[in-house]
């Protein structure tokens, strides 16, 4: 019984450690004492500027995006009753990517700040499409939702490639954004989408008790008095808001949404009232550690976090799958 609060506390501890490492480590290492001084405003000089000017925004963005993606993954898997569901597999990332690349292609955009609402619109559009495909007699068919998402991703990804092949300028602008990164993104971008993410987290927490009933199957949930269709819509909305917000800030970062719930489930069990908050912690832990790793691996250069999460998440998921699936 007392295990869960302990696990949450441990999770928060790990998260704090990751955040501290993210502030201290990079192309140059800064001692934690200097980091603390810089945060409290007592330190001056190059190191302090790096901490407050570059690493704090980056860490804050990684925390937010990671939490949003983690929660989005947990809700997506609950709503679809499909352990493979995630913002990536439902086509949401692909929708955002295509919208941004299309905007770069037609409107000659050059700055991530300009990408924000295209990313949000693309993510929302893709999600609505995936939903439309999965609706059957007013209800949502989990298998059709997953298949529809896969279909959508394939189409949108190939259109994105075609646009990038058609214009060298688009390729140059887009390929860095498409890798997914939390560096060099301004807090301004985050502030624009923060309301979306906040509402998304709220909705995710609200639907999580009902997701437990949904896990028993639609008929049973209905018999228990759970409004299945409405829960699906609200849960879907939460996924869209969270995924769209995080894509707009960091670009498509794969795998956090898929991996976080699989990481949390063995620890906290299948209760969504614990799973969703757990993923709010596990998501940023994954994203931050991936980001720090990306900075350390090829110092003084760095690898985009979207690429690191995929590298890191792939074997993790493989190991989990090996253990979990009979």
């Amino acid at each position: 019984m007392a295990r869960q609060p302990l696990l949450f506390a441990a999770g928060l501890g790990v998260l704090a450690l990751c955040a501290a490492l993210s502030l201290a480590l990079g192309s140059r290492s800064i001692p934690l004492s200097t980091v603390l001084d810089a945060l409290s405003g007592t330190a001056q000089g190059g190191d302090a500027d790096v901490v407050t000017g570059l690493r704090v925004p980056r860490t804050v963005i990684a925390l937010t995006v990671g939490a949003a993606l983690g929660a989005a993954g947990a809700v997506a898997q609950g709503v679809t009753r499909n352990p493979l569901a995630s913002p990536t597999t439902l086509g949401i990332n692909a929708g955002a990517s295509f919208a941004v690349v299309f905007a770069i292609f037609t409107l000659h955009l050059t700055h991530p700040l300009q990408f924000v609402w295209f990313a949000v619109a693309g993510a929302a559009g893709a999600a609505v499409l995936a939903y439309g495909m999965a609706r059957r007699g007013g209800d949502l068919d989990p298998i059709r939702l997953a298949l529809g998402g896969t279909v959508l991703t394939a189409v949108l990804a190939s259109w994105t490639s075609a646009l990038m092949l058609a214009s060298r300028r688009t390729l140059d602008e887009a390929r860095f954004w498409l890798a997914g990164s939390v560096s060099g993104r301004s807090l301004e971008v985050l502030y624009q989408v923060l309301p979306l993410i906040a509402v998304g987290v709220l909705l995710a927490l609200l639907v999580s008790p009902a997701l437990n009933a949904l896990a028993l199957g639609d008929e049973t949930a209905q018999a228990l008095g759970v409004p299945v269709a409405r829960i699906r819509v609200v849960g879907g909305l939460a996924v869209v808001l969270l995924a769209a917000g995080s894509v707009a800030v960091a670009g498509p970062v794969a795998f956090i949404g898929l991996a976080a719930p699989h990481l949390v489930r063995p620890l906290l069990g299948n209760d969504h009232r614990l799973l969703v908050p757990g993923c709010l912690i596990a998501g940023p832990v994954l994203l931050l550690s991936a980001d720090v790793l990306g900075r350390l691996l090829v110092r003084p250069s760095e690898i985009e976090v979207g690429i690191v999460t995929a590298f890191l998440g792939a074997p993790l998921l493989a190991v989990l799958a090996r253990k979990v699936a009979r």
Partner: protein
Amino acid sequence: MSTLARQRRRTLSFSAGFVAALVLMTAVALSTGQVKMPLGDALAALFGVGDAGDVLVVQEFRAPRVVSALVAGAALAVAGSLLQRLFRNPLASPDVIGVTGGASFGAVLLLATGASQALTPLAALGGGVLAAVLLGGFAWRSRMAVTRLVLVGLAVQAGLAAAVNLMIVRFPAELAGQALQWTTGSLYGRTWPEVFGAGSAIVVACAAVFLMNRRVAVLDLGDDSAGGLGLDPNRTRLGLLLLAIVLASLAAALTGPVAFVALAVPHLVRFLAGPPTPATLALSALTGAVLLLGADYLVLHLLPVKGLPVGAVTATLGAPWLLVLMVRQGRLPQRSRS
């Protein structure tokens, strides 16, 4: 029994129709292009008769492209059918289990080293096999659990795709464009050595699939029954899985990972001809060939935008088709969920 007979008749008539379509499409593909020539001249040129210029164009440029489309389309379709049946999962396809990602990875890595592009098919095959080895290494235990395979496949795919992405980001723009072209799937600039190499291997692998097809049917009865009939279910499944992986890698080696053919064809064939039989496997191969050749014709001659990768077209065409199927069927046939 009458349903069986009806199914056989439907399969046969669709196969006959697709064979006719293939002959017609091949003839049209050989005779159209920037150099215009009548159908008769094109066919004569195929056998080295007629104007030297025509012969060059048909024999060296058009024919290898057409043959690649036919062979790769068929290979992808057979690989997809086999995978979906083995996994009992309508989503299983070379893309899902990581083979596509592996092939892309191999080819792009070759681009990165600056080695001759003639080696691309070999590199793609190597990448596909690497993906298969990773898949096997992670997923293999005393028995092959389907869920685990699909999950691990997704993981392998994601890891390899990340490696490709990393290279695309780091490449100079020139190479990045080339890498992107390849990873989207394209029939551009195929040459005879590539076609013969990958093509003959595909023919052999396809023949092996047809020979082993009866064992798939036994596996369908369930592992216990299959064991009772004297078939080692795990070893059989592993062999068939390897065969599907080799087929998909070879197809990718020839054309790049053309999206959707492997995923869509089995659904299409089930819709046209009903549950799988040896004959429907042949129909799948035909359907894949028709689809890819048709898509390539579209890319070359019908679209206003030039130089599109054929993968973009197969995805665009395949998607609505699959969606219509989904709507009409109500629910996709699925025998077991695990």
